[in-house]
């Protein structure tokens, strides 16, 4: 049996498959379809200090091989997530969680991160500096190396758990941001968040989503995500959680060869509630097919000499 385990900052995962934040809620809906405890970990719904309704509807538009969403960080707030959602999830999911944290000021990031740092089951803090949905929100932090580093430094100095910075692809040079957060003390990088896109309804002649633009995800962004993970892997020495359009075990292997130590699966969960279960099932066979005995050995395997 091939070894599917991987490690992130000293935390061992049974397999590298993690549902991506915002595509898995807090897990309950999926636990009606399969035993979610088979997952490597879960990246929780993006959480802010205070509850948020998010953007007006429609929030969803279809694109070829993917979708646009402008949910706008709807969440019940950090206290409700910690007090209600995580204890409920803990009944079915027993492994370390990834808390996904958003904020609209450095202080908010710090306050929210501190709260999750104190939760026993949280293994990694994933800081979303890139959500493209909220006006004046995360976007500004993720698009400048300076502000990305500022958030990273502030959060790092306030918490004890590993801090992974989730990068936006909507930048000129993602390696510059990656280096900046590494230099500011980040323990790892999650990438990529969604790509800004738009659809226009020919009947109404207006953008389909009420917020005009939204984040694209799905298989259509896989090549772009692979390219960016490949570039960032060459630029930093901290681990990368790779994501963007992964929908089968072969995609997982491809993302790891590009440089990822683990992966997140996002849009696939929304159209196939059993997507992560099926990928985990396929992994050993797909590894065998490509002569891979130990999955963690292949991270960055597509690179020459690094």
């Amino acid at each position, binding site marked *: 049996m091939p070894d599917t385990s991987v490690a992130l900052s000293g935390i061992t995962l049974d397999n590298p498959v993690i549902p991506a934040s915002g595509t898995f809620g807090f897990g309950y*809906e999926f636990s009606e379809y399969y035993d979610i405890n088979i997952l490597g970990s879960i990246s929780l719904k993006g959480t802010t200090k205070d509850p948020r309704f*998010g953007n007006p509807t429609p929030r*969803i538009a*279809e694109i070829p091989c993917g979708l646009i*969403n402008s949910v706008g960080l709807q969440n019940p707030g950090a206290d409700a997530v910690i007090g209600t959602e995580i204890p409920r999830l803990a009944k079915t999911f027993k492994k370390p969680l990834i808390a996904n944290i958003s904020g609209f000021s450095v202080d908010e990031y710090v306050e929210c991160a501190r709260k999750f740092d104190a939760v026993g089951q949280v293994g990694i803090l994933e800081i979303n500096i890139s959500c493209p949905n909220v006006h004046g929100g995360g976007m500004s932090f993720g698009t400048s190396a300076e502000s990305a580093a500022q958030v990273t430094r502030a959060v790092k100095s306030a918490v004890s758990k590993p801090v992974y910075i989730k990068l936006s692809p909507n930048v000129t040079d993602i390696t510059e941001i990656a280096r900046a957060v590494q230099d500011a003390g980040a323990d790892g990088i999650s990438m990529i968040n969604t790509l800004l896109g738009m659809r226009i309804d020919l009947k109404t002649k207006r953008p*389909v989503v009420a917020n005009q633009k939204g984040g694209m995800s799905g298989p259509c962004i896989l090549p772009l995500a692979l390219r960016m993970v490949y570039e960032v892997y060459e630029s930093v020495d901290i681990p990368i959680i790779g994501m963007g359009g992964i929908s089968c075990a072969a995609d997982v292997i491809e993302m790891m060869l590009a440089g990822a130590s683990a992966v997140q699966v996002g849009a696939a969960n929304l*159209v*196939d509630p*059993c997507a992560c279960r099926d990928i985990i099932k396929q992994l050993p066979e797909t590894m065998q097919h490509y002569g891979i005995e130990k999955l963690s050995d292949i991270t960055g395997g597509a690179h020459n000499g690094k």
Partner: protein
Amino acid sequence: MKQSVFEVTDNTGIAENVFRMTLSGDVSQITAPGQFVNIKLDGFFLRRPISVCDTGEDRLVIIYKVVGGGTLAMSKLERGAALDVLTGLGNGFDVSKSGQNPLLIGGGVGAPPMYMLCKKLAGLGRKVTAVLGFNSGSDVFLTRELEQAGATVLLATADGSMGTRGFVTDILPQDYSYFYACGPMPMLKAVCEKTITEGELSFEERMGCGFGACMGCTCKTKYGNKRICRDGPVLKKSEVIF
């Protein structure tokens, strides 16, 4: 909720751009009228959520209108086609609230869930009145089936080509115990203004997943945020905010 494969056994046009599809498969998770199924189609990333019109033993009936590429592809599916379907989605109508003479109000392709609801209520001995509204006579469907299921059917068309000229709200009867409505948003709003009892309304929204994970279809109600796909699609008149 369940994911399983259904086979198309019939797919026939019944009104202008409106089709009735019958499928065979496991319908055990469909527990209430007003629930919906979410159908995967080749060549389209997102599933298509469609309300349940009727169920029988291993039999699912849906009625849908061609409004875009996905439903156009559906309309071309032939007998024997296999479809990946999520069933048992949404809360559905609460038949226990109906009282003795409930009103069923359906506008356009909001009418189909009223059929299964009518059958359930008639089975409970209720005296059902169904009020249906369409744009034109060529759009009308389901009136005969509802009559056969035991309902008194009242019909309005916007252009007056069949039934009474006007909207469903122009032909609402005076005496009823409760109401159930499904149709376009302006109709639902008008129904709430004109009805004198509590009732239930089924809403439509663009969905990502259809089972509560993505928060794509959230709306505000008097009792907090609700996901149309999971906490709805049926909401009570007393909680709705237009």
